[in-house]
């Protein structure tokens, strides 16, 4: 009985015609659907209420987002769907959307008189399950029940399949088609894994309307555990079942995890700029690289993939970068960013993001606080672990972002992040003096982004983890995990830690060798992060940034490290050299690199992207970045593989002259590099 009536619901759009009066409440669905409508416009609110009542829904209206949120919190299972205006005085509709997604996991429909494409897209990326243009017609409201059913179906499916299919997103398979019927939905988040659906138990699940699952609140801790588990598995292999096992939280069901995973993926995807890159790019890209990264593989894979996915790093350059990064294997195979670090990163409670923790052996002490907020792991190892940095940053971003509801926490968290434990080398006194500034801007954009980035994807978020644009390049051993700015996207907005990607690129290269332990003078602290922040926040460029950049390639570095440093330096410098304007948006990877740098460059002065030398020169002139070469010779050799790296990076940027390895380091001196 249920199934037949269920089918009836699904097939008809006419609310009354298809319903059968029946004994079971389910038969009357969607009659009685509990809708919460939020709009500050009293006229619209009243009209909507009347329309929804005409559809036989149970309507609660609310003219303030805060009120709506508290209503929802008080009664988590008291509503089936939320309709909210975008433009509200007390809270942005998208922010409300994220809160609801995170806390209550209800389908949310956005509406606005604004039908601009970017606003609608924002709705999609923030996880709205539909977007209605005002004035809303009653016909549009008649079908909103589909979003409720769809969501339940997804969750049910997941529940059903717990323990069976490994690829936990199978439920999406079924809902995939359904999902696309929504006006705001777009296609392609399916991952190839979802294809196999041999067992189609979902067909029997018509009666999803009667399913009521207790809602799980994803607290900060829980989400951290979740993200840690996901990272451990590798975003590609993170299936709900395994995540659940790793998390080992009593009472948590696979279906809870699955739906949260969907949102998380959406969040990642959104961070990556809603890239239009096919997932295949990720897959193919990563494979060749995975091997090289060895221990980093899982992380790298993630980063690269996500980066690649987001198109920030063209596959080709990504490969090149990786190759370049790996090209000089330093004897250290260690991954600069062990998972441990990441866990730390995710720990909100722990204000000190200890990026460097993982590398205890490495000069942990040297946690250079390159960027005020950027945790930089001065990992002496040069590593190709670009991803690490990016990833961790990305993760951080996500962490931050995903807890949009804890916005207040975010700020402090960000602040914390901003003060990596890195030991300040990079932080000069001057720069240290700036952290607050840095942080706040950072905090803000991040925060907002975080909220925005709330992975509240109501519609099966895509499978690809096109994650935040991590800069794959970024993190090499020393990985400065700076919150990378998503240079392209931003300025000043979008993914808060978007900056990470950019930064990461810088970092990697800097393989601060482990040898450099306390000697490392703020090398790693490439400013990229600073730059990014600046860029983001339109900060006045600070000189300290550049100073930081002046990576202190200390003499203690070995050739290996030098190379790493050099690469890094180059990359950093080059990047700095690039005027933000030029680099921005040119290329993701470029942005990462350049962004990080150029932002400081910008401030300092016209870093000319065209010429690395110029950049350096200009940097010098500005007195900002000086690359001091304490290290012997090697520091500026041209024969590092940096060429490869730089070329790869630069190729992507048309505006940027081919990387000339001619960075004229000579004569640069590092000033104020706190060690």
């Amino acid at each position, binding site marked *: 009985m249920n199934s037949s009536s269920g089918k009836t619901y699904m097939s008809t759009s006419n609310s009354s015609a298809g319903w059968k009066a029946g004994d079971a409440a389910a038969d009357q669905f969607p009659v009685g659907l509990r809708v919460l409508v939020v709009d*500050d*416009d*009293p*006229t*619209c609110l*009243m*009209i909507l209420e*009347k*329309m929804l009542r*005409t559809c036989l829904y149970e309507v609660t209206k609310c003219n303030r987002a805060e009120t709506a949120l508290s209503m929802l919190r008080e009664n988590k299972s008291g509503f089936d769907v939320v309709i909210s205006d975008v*433009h509200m005085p007390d809270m942005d509709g998208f922010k409300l959307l994220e809160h609801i997604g995170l806390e209550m996991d209800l389908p949310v429909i956005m509406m*606005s*008189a*604004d039908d601009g494409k970017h606003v609608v897209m924002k709705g999609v990326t923030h996880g709205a399950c539909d977007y209605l243009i*005002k*004035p*809303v*017609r*009653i016909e549009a409201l008649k079908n909103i029940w589909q979003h409720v059913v769809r969501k339940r179906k997804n969750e049910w499916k997941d529940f059903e399949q717990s323990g069976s299919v490994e690829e936990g997103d199978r439920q999406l398979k079924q809902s995939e088609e359904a999902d696309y019927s929504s006006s705001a939905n777009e296609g392609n988040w399916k991952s190839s894994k979802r294809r196999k659906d041999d067992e189609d138990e979902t067909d029997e699940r018509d009666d999803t309307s009667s399913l009521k699952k207790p809602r799980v609140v994803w607290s900060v801790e829980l989400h951290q555990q979740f993200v840690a588990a996901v990272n451990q598995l590798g975003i590609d292999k993170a299936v709900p079942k395994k995540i659940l096992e790793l998390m080992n939280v009593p009472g948590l069901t696979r279906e809870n995890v699955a739906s949260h995973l969907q949102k998380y993926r959406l969040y990642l995807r959104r961070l990556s700029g809603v890239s239009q890159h096919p997932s295949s790019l990720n897959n193919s890209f990563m494979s060749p690289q995975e091997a090289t990264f060895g221990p980093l593989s899982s992380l790298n894979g993630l980063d690269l993939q996500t980066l690649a996915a987001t198109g920030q790093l063209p596959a080709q350059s990504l490969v090149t970068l990786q190759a370049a990064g790996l090209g000089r294997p330093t004897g250290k195979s260690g991954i600069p960013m062990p998972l441990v670090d990441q866990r730390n990163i995710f720990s909100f409670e722990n204000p000190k993001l200890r990026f460097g923790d993982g590398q205890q052996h490495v000069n942990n002490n040297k946690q250079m606080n390159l960027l005020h907020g950027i945790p930089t792991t001065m990992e002496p190892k040069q590593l190709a672990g670009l991803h690490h940095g990016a990833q961790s940053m990305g993760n951080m971003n996500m962490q931050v972002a995903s807890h949009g509801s804890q916005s207040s926490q975010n700020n402090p968290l960000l602040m914390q992040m901003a003060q990596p434990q890195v030991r300040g080398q990079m932080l000069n006194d001057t720069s240290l003096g700036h952290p607050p500034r840095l942080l706040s801007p950072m905090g803000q954009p991040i925060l907002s982004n975080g909220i925005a980035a709330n992975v509240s994807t109501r519609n099966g978020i895509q499978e690809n983890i096109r994650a935040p644009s991590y800069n794959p390049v970024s993190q090499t051993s020393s990985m400065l995990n700076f919150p990378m700015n998503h240079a392209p996207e931003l300025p000043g907005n979008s993914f808060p830690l978007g900056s990470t990607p950019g930064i990461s690129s810088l970092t990697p290269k800097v393989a601060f060798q482990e040898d450099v332990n306390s000697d490392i003078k703020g090398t790693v602290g490439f400013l990229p992060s600073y730059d990014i922040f600046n860029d983001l926040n339109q900060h006045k460029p600070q000189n300290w940034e550049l100073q930081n950049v002046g990576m202190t390639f200390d003499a203690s570095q070995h050739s290996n490290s030098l190379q790493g440093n050099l690469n890094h330096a180059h990359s950093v410098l080059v990047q700095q050299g690039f005027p933000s304007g030029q680099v921005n948006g040119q290329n993701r990877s470029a942005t990462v690199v350049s962004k990080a740098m150029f932002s400081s460059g910008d401030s300092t002065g016209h870093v000319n992207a065209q010429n690395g030398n110029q950049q350096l020169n200009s940097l010098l002139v500005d007195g900002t970045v000086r690359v001091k070469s304490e290290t012997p010779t090697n520091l500026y050799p041209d024969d590092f593989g940096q060429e490869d790296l730089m070329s790869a990076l630069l190729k992507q940027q048309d505006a940027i002259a081919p990387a000339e390895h001619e960075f004229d380091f000579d004569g640069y001196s590092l000033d104020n590099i706190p060690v």
Partner: protein
Amino acid sequence: MDRNRLQHQVACMRRSLFDQGYLDEPFIQLEELQDDANPNFVQEIVTLFYTDSARLIQNIEHALNSRPIDFDKLDDYMHQFKGSSSSIGAKKVTNECTVFREYCSAENAEGCIRSFQQVKQEYAILRRKLEVYLQMVRQAAVSRTA
């Protein structure tokens, strides 16, 4: 007779409101929402619209008179005003709001001031016509009782 005539007048006026572009499709939706449970729904909504509009118009006036002009705030108010006027199908008013917002985004103070005059004018005209119309509707409804 009277009733029929009244009803005929109501129908004519209604038609002209639509033909002349004062009202649009959403207004029909409002009319369709009116039922026995809410026999005065249209009037209620329109009244709510007047109240809200008065507030918004005042805010806009204030914002236009302050120096320097805060265009973001102006746009915000006008966005709201446009939203509610479009919800009831006030077509001409909505169109003028759109023009205003264009000047606003161009930060053209002169343009804003001028187009706001247009907004107010269209609003005043519509309000007058609606009041007449709705009164006729009420009269026809009353006369219908038999």
